[in-house]
């Protein structure tokens, strides 16, 4: 079935584009190579004629040996099914590719990221500025020939750190004894800082608003990066007319920890604990996606028991995350900390389970390629059973009793920060944000991974796309997760938890793979390219928290400044993942 479908697609593409589009025939690769000049036509065709309306991931790859830059696009149908991959290549020097923002608005931030980190210019992008680093930063760090100040070797594990019997610190080997590196001939005297002029210039027109006779001027307000309601170090620059938002620019990168650059130096297994620190509320879910993508390349399957435990951990994570998100949304609505205390209470109980299985409350590092690190310790299954059947169902009822009909929650949530279904798909919003806008798209159903096809659960969906619905959808999803948990813990089989022997250094055949899961915040995908060496050649994360804020400006326009806080809370971002 899938075969005939893809040959049909191939035929259609052939007849329409001829030579301009060809299947990617490199070993282990998939999808189509598109010529840059045909990219816009091709993307329009893919979206309108083939129905791939959801551009999930855009990223670049630096093929330094072939002297090429490649941009990789993953498009999906919101009705479900596998991806359509297409790629476009350009030269490394002065790389230019047409921008797809006009066709898929969700490409906006991802193209900016590719420009920032890889130096690929997107022609026709409305606002191509650096996004994670600051304006004026020297170089594009993910290029293979760009070296960080603390560069030691291209691949880990590094050599001896105590060569002559004496340990050294990397600080001793770098200028200024600091993690800095300036371009040659740089002198601070002759240098003019770029400042944030382009950021402020990118806001809408600052003209006087007339019409109401007051002749007042627009003002610009910075929220963050240190602001109690931004859930970390997130910054928003809002242009206001009185108290109404005229335009808003999210500014991020204050927690940019160079995950991808470090990930391309690390061996495959070394990246597992780093994934914990992406969306640090949901470390189990991050492990899951990364394990899936590497397992696809290695072609291994975890044993039954491990699959069940994976699902149990992933669903517990979803419960944790949604409790947390609801608690802190209420924080943002002004109910300071009391609802959050209720939420954190339940989270602590689940964290005890995580600690029991993995040894750590937050950074679980529990998944391995082809299995799990450890089996359940004695008594833990009973704890999970108790949570799934007794405690959590009761507590979610309690939470709903306090909040759902609460006057303030309703007034501040209903009709605020609306995103329509078309907009949500266009912006490639994922997870609760997408489903609260009436799009029943859930990777667990749309392209089932692991053993999700065995469980009986519903995709929660709400239709208004406002803050209130994004609250409700999280409550619904907790209930569905509890259903899955109940089934999984009932059916949990005995047996092994690892296929083959656990290995420190895995062998990963060359090729590319994209593993994605429905993480609590939305579709989390890992795009991994292996060249057969012990470290990934390219390691990219499609982070839902990052892409979900693409629609932030659209949701906020016309709202009051106080609502922006609620809107951001309802999107539920985690900065570790937004900035990576």
């Amino acid at each position: 079935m899938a075969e005939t479908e893809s040959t049909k697609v191939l035929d259609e593409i052939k007849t329409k584009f001829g030579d301009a589009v060809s299947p990617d025939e490199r070993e282990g690769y998939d999808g189509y190579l598109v010529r840059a000049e045909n990219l816009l036509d091709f993307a329009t065709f893919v979206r309108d004629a083939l129905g791939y309306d959801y551009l999930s991931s855009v990223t670049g790859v630096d093929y330094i040996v072939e002297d090429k830059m490649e941009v990789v696009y993953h498009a999906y149908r919101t009705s479900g099914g596998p991806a359509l991959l297409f790629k476009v290549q350009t030269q490394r020097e002065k790389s230019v590719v047409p921008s797809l923002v006009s066709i898929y608005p969700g490409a906006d931030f991802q193209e900016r990221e590719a420009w920032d980190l890889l130096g690929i210019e997107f022609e026709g992008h409305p606002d191509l500025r650096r996004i994670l680093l600051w304006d004026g930063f020297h170089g594009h760090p993910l290029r293979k020939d760009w070296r960080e100040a603390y560069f030691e070797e291209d691949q880990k594990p590094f050599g001896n750190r105590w060569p002559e019997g004496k340990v050294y610190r990397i600080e001793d080997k770098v200028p200024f004894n600091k993690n800095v590196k300036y371009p040659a001939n740089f002198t601070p005297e002759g240098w003019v800082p770029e400042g944030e002029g382009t950021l402020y210039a990118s806001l809408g027109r600052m003209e006087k608003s007339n019409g109401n006779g007051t002749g007042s001027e627009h003002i610009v307000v910075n929220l963050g990066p240190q602001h109690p309601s931004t859930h970390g170090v997130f910054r928003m620059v809002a242009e206001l007319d009185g108290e109404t938002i005229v335009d808003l620019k999210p500014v991020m990168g204050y927690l940019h920890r160079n995950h991808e650059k470090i990930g391309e130096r690390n061996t495959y297994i070394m990246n597992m604990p780093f994934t914990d620190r992406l969306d640090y509320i949901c470390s189990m879910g991050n492990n899951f996606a990364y394990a899936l993508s590497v397992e696809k390349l290695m072609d291994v399957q975890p044993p039954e028991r491990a699959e069940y435990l994976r699902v149990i951990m992933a669903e517990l994570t979803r419960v944790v995350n949604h409790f947390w998100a609801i608690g802190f949304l209420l924080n943002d609505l002004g109910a300071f900390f009391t609802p959050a205390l209720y939420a954190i209470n339940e989270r602590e109980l689940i964290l005890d389970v995580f600690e029991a299985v993995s040894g750590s409350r937050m950074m679980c590092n529990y998944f391995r390629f082809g299995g799990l690190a450890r089996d359940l310790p004695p008594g833990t299954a009973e704890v999970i059973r108790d949570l799934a059947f007794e405690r959590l169902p009761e507590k979610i009822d309690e939470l709903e009793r306090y909040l759902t009909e609460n006057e303030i929650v309703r007034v501040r949530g209903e009709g605020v920060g609306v995103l329509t279904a078309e907009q949500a798909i266009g912006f490639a919003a994922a997870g609760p944000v997408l489903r609260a806008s009436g799009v029943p798209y859930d990777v667990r159903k749309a392209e089932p991974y692991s053993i999700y096809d065995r469980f009986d659960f519903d995709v929660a969906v709400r239709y208004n796309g406002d803050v209130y619905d994004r609250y409700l959808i999280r409550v619904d999803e907790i209930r569905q997760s509890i259903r899955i948990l109940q089934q999984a813990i009932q059916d949990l089989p005995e047996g092994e938890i690892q296929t083959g022997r656990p290995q420190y250094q895995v062998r990963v055949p060359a090729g590319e793979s994209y593993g994605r899961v429905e993480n609590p915040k939305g579709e989390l995908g890992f795009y991994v390219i292996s060249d057969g060496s012990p470290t990934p050649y390219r390691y990219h994360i499609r982070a839902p928290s990052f892409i979900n804020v693409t629609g932030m400006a659209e949701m906020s326009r016309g709202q009051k400044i106080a609502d922006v806080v609620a809107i951001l809370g309802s999107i539920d971002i985690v900065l570790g993942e937004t900035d990576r």
Partner: protein
Amino acid sequence: MPLGVSIIFSGSGAWQQTGGRPLFAEVGMAEDVNQETPIPEEENGSEFEIPEELRGQVTITTLDKLYNWGRRNSVWPMMFGLACCAIEMICVAASRYDFSRFGMEVMRPSPRQSDLMIVSGTVTKKMIPQIVRLYNQMPEPKYVLAMGACASGGGPFKEGYNVVSGVDKFVPVDVYVPGCPPTPQALLHGLITLQEKIDKQSIQSVRWYSKQASEPIPIPILGPDLIDPRDLPDFAERQAAVEEKAAAEAKT
């Protein structure tokens, strides 16, 4: 001071309070260890004799102890989270670990009202100007607690091009809490360690009462890479040395 209280200063800093409840009994009981200006035992006894009828209401202590007792039990942290560690910090504030037991529950969103900056997470180059600015905005007495591996020394992300190898490269740190993330118990331990540190301070030597006002820390600049203004005086020489070395390496 409540009405009806009189204080007698002595040269060595001992003082006596009369009237009201024995408000400072707890201070008197605090351990005498590590005190910078210890008060000889006989001084309390001989110089200020407490009449029999006032014994239950009056206690004698040192100004340092009283002052430190007040500060150590109301360390207000700044509501300021950077990364993963911030989540554990929130858990410490929540009901299970609850640092309000130590007088710390009043988290202030404004640096102007806070005593303690818990640097809870990875310090990036893009963020460090703001962190230094926040530190400068905090009024004295102020403390910094580096929570977790990242804030203490760069942590797992140390090699990253946008990561500062520990917040102590820019602001002085009082307590380091290891861990990634430190468990809530570890953070509590760090906060108690800070209290012990406060206990040891003396009003005679603390920097905020010294004659020279403390200078604000120069704000780092975002250039082609992070520029520390304190490096600027001999910047050219050092940069030249780097380039020379790079050229030599390129040759070999």
